[in-house]
Structures are given as C-alpha cells and as structure tokens.
C-alpha cells in the first residue's frame, strides 16, 4: 500500500510541476500577478508531494518490503538499518527520485524566501524549474519507477552492492546531487533573464549565493567520493580520472568559473552575456554528468544502471534543455546590454583570466571523457583516455592559474596596478621559493617538481593570508587600527582568503602524497615485523569474524614507534554472502605526518599473507583542504545575507532566514 501511495504522490508531484511550468510563465507574459504568484504554491506543493513519495520509498526499504522490485533488487533483511535507509538512493530509480526531491527543495526555497525578487523573474525562474521537474518526473514514471511491484513476493532481497554499503558513499550522492541540482537555479534564472531579455545586478546578487551553495555541496560531494575511493578501493589512490569522477568534476570547474564571473557581474555589471552562457553550460554539464552516470554509457564501477531506453530518454532530456537553452541564448543574448568597462589589468581582468583557464580545464576534461565514446561511435575504433592523458593536459592548465590566484584579490577593480601588486607579493614569492629550496635540499635533491609544487602551495596559502594582512595594513599601521580594519573587512574577503588558502592545502596534500609515498608489497608471516617509514609494523595474525551480512578475515597489525604502540590496524577481506562479492577494508591510521595504510591480501598457502603497506605523507590534507574551501564558501555566504539585508534591515529581523 505504501508503495502505491508513493507512486501516486509522484504522479501528483508531476501534476504540480506541469502547473508550475506553465501558468506562472503565462502569467509573466500576460502580466497577470495572480498567475505569477501561483508559482510559489505549485513549487511548494510539488516539493511536498515528491518528498512524501521519497519518504514512502524509504519506508518500504526500512520495512524490507520485498514485494517492491526496487527493494528486492537492492536490499536484504539482514542489512544494517542505516544501509536500508541509504540503499533507497543507492540505486538508479531511488537516486533519480532523490534528484527531483532536491530540485523541488531548491524551488520551494525560492518560493518561500524569494520575497525580494522581482515578481516576473521569480515566476519565470520557478517556471523553468518546473520544466526540469516535469522532464525528470516523467522520466521516473515512464522508465524508472521505484515503486514497481513484484509477484510472487521473494523470501528475501538481493542485497545492496557491498561497496555501496558505506557511510560516506551513502552521503556522497545527496551532496553531489545538491551540487548538480543547485546549479539548476543559476540555469533557471539565466533562462528567466533571457525570456525577459533583461538582466541587472540584482540578478547576479540572487544567482551568486545559489551558485555558491551548489558549489559548496559539489565540492564536499566530490571530496567525499574521493575519500571513499581512497579507503574503500584499497590501494590508496584518491583520484582516478574515471569518467564518473569527471562527470562531477566538469560542473565543478564550470561552477567555479561561474562563481567568479557572477562576482564581476554583481559588482561591476560586466560580463553579463558570458555569465548567462556559463550558467547554462554549468547546468548542462550537470545534466551531462547525470546522463553519463545514469545511462550506463560508461559501464564503470559507479554506473549501476545499464539500460538503453533510459539512456535515450535522458539523452532526449539533455538535448531539449541544452539545445533549447543555447538556442534561446543565441536569440536573446544580443538584447542584454553590456556595461562596466574595465582595463585588461584589473580585478575584472584577473577574473576573466580565471574563467579562461577554468573553461579550458573543463573543456579538456569534457573532450577527454567523451572522445573515446564519440570516436567509437563514428569509426568503431576503440581507444582509452585515462589518467595519464588528464595528468598531462589538466596539470599544465591548472599550474598557471594557481600561480595567478594570489594576484586576483590584490588587484583594484577597473584598473589595476600589476607592478605594484607584484612588488607587494614579493614577500610571499620569496617565502615560497625559500620553502621550495628547503624542501629540495632536505630531501637531498628530491624531485624538483615536487619541491616546486610545495613552493606553489606555500605561494597560494601565503598569498591568501598576505592579502588580508595587506588589507588591514598589518605592520604599516598601529596594531589597534589593523584590528579595527580586520573587524571591518567584509566576510566575503575572509571567505575568499579561506577558499584560496584551501586550494593551497589541497595542493600540498596532492604533491606530498604523490611524490613521497612509500609502498611495500610483501608477504608476512604471523609474528613478523616490518619497518615502513619509521613505523615498526607487527603482523599478529588473521582471525575470522562475522558481520551482519558478511563474513570477514581480519588481519591484526600492531604499529610501534620507538617501542611504543601507536596504533592497532585491522585491515580485512570481507565476503558478502548474498551478492557473493568480496571487498577489501584497508586499515588506516592517520598521523599528523601522514597516513599509514595497510591492506591484507590473500594467504600464500604456507601460512604467510600478502600484505601491502603504504605511507601516504600528508594525504589527509587533500580532504581537509577541500573542506577549508567549503568553509570559505560558507563564510562568504554569511556575508551575502548581511549585505543584502542592509537596505531592508527591518525585514531581515522579521524574517531571519532569507534564502541567501
């Protein structure tokens, strides 16, 4: 019964979406305020019904109702409750429903908190959101119904793919989707602006926080996926340039560019046309990501849906939305008035350069990801485009961009002073070079590129901190004045500093984990001790253990430093009996200097085991750095609310959570 209610709620949500996609836009066209206002009710109604439908899906999962096909395929009565819940979106149908829930949630936020938006813009934007909902709800109902029944009812389920039975992979899709779908806001606003043929700074002020929120979610989602790959896949890699990773990385690159170009548009009313185009492209890449993952066109570890009908359907959705949006852009963009002139050397100029590099990077990843598919479709020839290609092309695109980052925030708007900025940054450059030299020297002429990489990381972090010090006139004014100035700095400056420093931290992690990694592959007998990177690792033995829906062989390792026990690691080989699938659980201990990573391999037959031990120096900084970037976004976001609230302070007090 619950499944039928859920199915019906999905249908009702589609009905609401149909209304939301038509009436408000008609109202905006005719100037009918009541029709325009109806968008808000439809958006909220759609959200309520689609989330109710999703709640029904979670309920059938929790109850292990195996008469529902989806539950039978992806759950098992012995599965821990948490994975019963998360399993509801760990499959194609459920994850598409979650996609629409998040989409409707964003729409409802605009409906609830978009009071300060011009009525026509709000109606059009919500209408466009309605179209996206219609497409995806129709897709769910036509090809991917999560509520389909099964008869006769099986005794138990087939369990969820074991590598998905993991808490961070359970949180990963919602975060990623919040990012993907969050960019739909920028898209809807862009289309709304094109429909109206007018765009102003208020538009940018509205789009920027949404883009920032989406970007934060996407950053966190990608980071979590990478962390999962690091500890779950069992060889300590953290980024593989897998097409599915690329699918989420492309919108991230484009979204990062959009964040910066919207800044120019908000402050200086320049780059309007480009920002609109970028908003369309970013969401298009999100749709492409959904298509690549969901259609099974890639058939990789992540693509758990292989079905041509669905692929064609999503391809059609993509073609309509991307093609339609670009056609509308070509037709209407000339109407948008350009404004805000600036010299090439200026803050705007720096942000344009940022966009050039990020767009090239996104384009490179796009071509590398699609090239083998297209080539095979056109010529039948199969080639692979893997990690080495991306490392060789993406790296050289990013390095100059990262070198330029500290200059950007130091430049004045409209007309900057390159020479002056360079002179000011001399201190940081000297610090970076000295660090690089020291690293080179202390590793006895260790890899030159790695030393330079560390230098670049110091340049980024130092540059970010220096910008703040320079703004508060540190050392150039009395301490009290600097302190006062620091208090007066807008939050967005702190946010910029934090996010830019975060990139430096990520880079430091990448460089050290790549260049100074230690790997030992060997066989060990129980009782044997091995020394890796200053850790004395004793293999105590292997014992069997029984989990709720798996059995495992657990290796016991004791780690000592100078005779003192600093860690006990229990890497395991698991076997999930329902799916008959093995997984590897690495034993990881994070020290301040880096991770000790132990993987238990197969027994060799004479009582010893294959053991892999890795020392990954500073690898954790990769994920810490991304969260520092997310934090920077959050700090910047808190500024937006305050600033927009200023002219309407009374309203803000009455309504303490505007959707900024």
């Amino acid at each position: 019964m619950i499944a039928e209610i859920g199915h019906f709620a999905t249908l009702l949500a589609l009905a609401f979406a149909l209304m939301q996609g038509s009436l408000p836009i008609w109202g905006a066209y005719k100037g009918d305020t009541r029709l325009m206002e109806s968008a808000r009710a439809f958006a909220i109604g759609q959200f309520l019904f689609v989330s109710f439908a999703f709640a029904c899906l979670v309920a059938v999962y929790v109850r292990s109702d195996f008469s529902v096909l989806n539950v039978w395929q992806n759950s098992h009565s012995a599965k821990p409750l948490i994975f019963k819940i998360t399993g509801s979106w760990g499959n194609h149908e459920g994850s598409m429903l979650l996609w629409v829930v998040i989409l409707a949630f964003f729409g409802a936020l605009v409906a609830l908190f978009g009071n300060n938006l011009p009525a026509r813009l709000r109606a059009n934007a919500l209408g466009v959101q309605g179209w996206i909902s219609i497409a995806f709800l129709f897709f769910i109902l036509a090809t991917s119904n999560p509520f389909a029944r099964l008869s006769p009812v099986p005794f138990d389920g087939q369990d969820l793919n074991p590598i998905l039975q993991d808490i961070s992979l359970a949180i990963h899709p919602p975060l990623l989707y919040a990012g993907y779908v969050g960019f739909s806001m920028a898209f809807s606003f862009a289309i709304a602006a094109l429909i109206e043929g007018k765009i102003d700074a208020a538009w940018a002020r509205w789009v920027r926080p949404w883009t920032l929120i989406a970007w934060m979610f996407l950053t966190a989602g990608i980071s979590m996926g990478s962390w999962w790959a690091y500890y779950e896949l069992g060889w300590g890699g953290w980024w593989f340039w897998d097409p599915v990773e690329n699918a989420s990385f492309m919108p991230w690159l484009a979204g990062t560019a959009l964040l910066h170009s919207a800044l120019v548009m908000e402050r200086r009313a320049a780059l309007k046309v480009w920002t609109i185009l970028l908003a369309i492209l970013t969401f298009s890449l999100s749709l492409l990501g959904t298509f690549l993952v969901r259609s099974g066109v890639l058939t990789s570890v992540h693509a758990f849906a292989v079905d041509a009908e669905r692929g064609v359907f999503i391809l059609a959705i993509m073609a309509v939305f991307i093609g339609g949006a670009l056609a509308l852009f070509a037709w209407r963009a000339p109407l948008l008035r350009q404004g805000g002139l600036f010299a090439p050397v200026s803050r705007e100029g720096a942000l344009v350069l940022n966009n050039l590099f990020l767009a090239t990077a996104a384009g490179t990843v796009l071509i590398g990801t699609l090239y083998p598919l297209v080539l095979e479709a056109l010529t039948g020839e199969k080639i692979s485009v893997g990690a080495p290609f991306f490392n060789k092309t993406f790296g050289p695109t990013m390095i100059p961009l990262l070198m330029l980052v500290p200059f950007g925030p130091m430049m004045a708007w409209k007309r900057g002073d390159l020479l002056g900025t360079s002179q000011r940054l001399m201190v940081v450059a000297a610090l970076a070079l000295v660090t690089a030299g020291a690293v080179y020297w202390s590793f006895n002429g260790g890899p030159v590129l790695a030393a330079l990489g560390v230098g670049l990381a110091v340049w980024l972090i130092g540059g970010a901190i220096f910008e703040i010090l320079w703004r508060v006139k540190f050392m150039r004014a009395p301490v009290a004045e600097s302190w006062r100035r620091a208090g007066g700095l807008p939050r967005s400056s702190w946010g910029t500093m934090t996010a830019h420093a975060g990139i430096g931290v990520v880079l430091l992690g990448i460089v050290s984990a790549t260049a100074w990694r230690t790997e030992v592959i060997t066989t060990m007998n129980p009782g044997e001790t091995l020394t890796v990177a200053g850790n004395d690792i004793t293999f105590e033995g292997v014992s069997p253990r029984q989990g709720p829906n798996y059995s495992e062989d657990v290796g016991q390792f004791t780690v000592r430093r100078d005779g003192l026990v600093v860690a006990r690691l229990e890497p395991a080989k698991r076997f999930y009996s329902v799916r008959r699938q093995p997984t590897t659980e690495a034993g990881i201990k994070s020290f301040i200097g880096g991770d000790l990573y132990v993987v238990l391999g197969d027994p060799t037959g004479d009582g010893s085991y294959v053991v892999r031990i890795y020392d990954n120096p500073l690898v954790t900084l990769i994920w810490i750095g991304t969260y520092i970037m997310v934090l920077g976004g959050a700090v910047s976001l808190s500024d937006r609310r305050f600033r927009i609230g200023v002219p309407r302070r009374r309203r803000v007090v009455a309504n303490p959570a505007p959707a900024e």
Partner: protein
Amino acid sequence: MRNLLLAIFLLLGTGVAGAVLPDEVLSDPALETRAREISAGVRCLVCQNQSIDDSEATLARDLRILVRERLVAGDSDNQVVQFLVDRYGEFVLLEPRFYTRTWILWSAPLVMFAAGALILGWRSRRITASVPAGLTEDEQKALDDILHEG
C-alpha cells in the same frame, strides 16, 4: 561486447585492492621501476578504467608478468608498449598515442585556450580603446558640478 565485458568484469569481482603481488616483483629495482611505470599506463582490458598496475584481475596479472618478461628479455619501454598494442590494439593504452585519430584530442586543450585568449585579446583592445585614461567629459562635468555646489 560491452555487456560481455561487464559480465566478465562482474565474474572477476570488482577488482578491489592494489594489484602487484610479491612474486611478480623483479629482483632488479631499475627494471621493476620501469615495469611499474609502463603498467600504470596499460589498461586492464576486463576492468573499467583501471590500469593493470591497480587491478587484481587475473588478466591484469598476466599482463603485468608479460610486461616484466619483455623487460627482462631486454626490450625497451617503447618495444614493450608496441608489443602490447600489436596484441590488444590502441585500446590497451590509457594514454592514447598521438596519431591521425587522436590529434584532435591532444591539441584540443591548447586550441581552446588559444581561441579564448585571442577572443579576449581582441575584445580587450576594443575595450581599452574605449576606456579613456582620465575622466570622460560627462564625469568631469558631474564632478565639477558637485565641487561647485560645495
């Protein structure tokens, strides 16, 4: 074909856990380093986007051993790679070689960047031409008005 590959892939398990096994490692560290470098660029044909260095599929192990055999026999790195391509086609290389079918791929990043830079250069010349060094007449007038008011 793709479904077949997928079926094989599922049969072999998901290919988790790092791959090189102790008995494969060559005694000569220089040769072993070369073997690892080559392996990192060779695709495990039954896996998805994994190099033979990362995969624990049986076929990956066979290829790893093959690479090492060729190296021990005295092949250069290029000869080993060519040997694999002759047997398995270009598909086996994770880094596609530069030839007629791939020159678009390899030149794309540079072309995109150059095109973007050219457009920007052209636009900025136009913009610079229209940004006067000082104030415009209107701005000067507005400023004068304000100053005179005071």
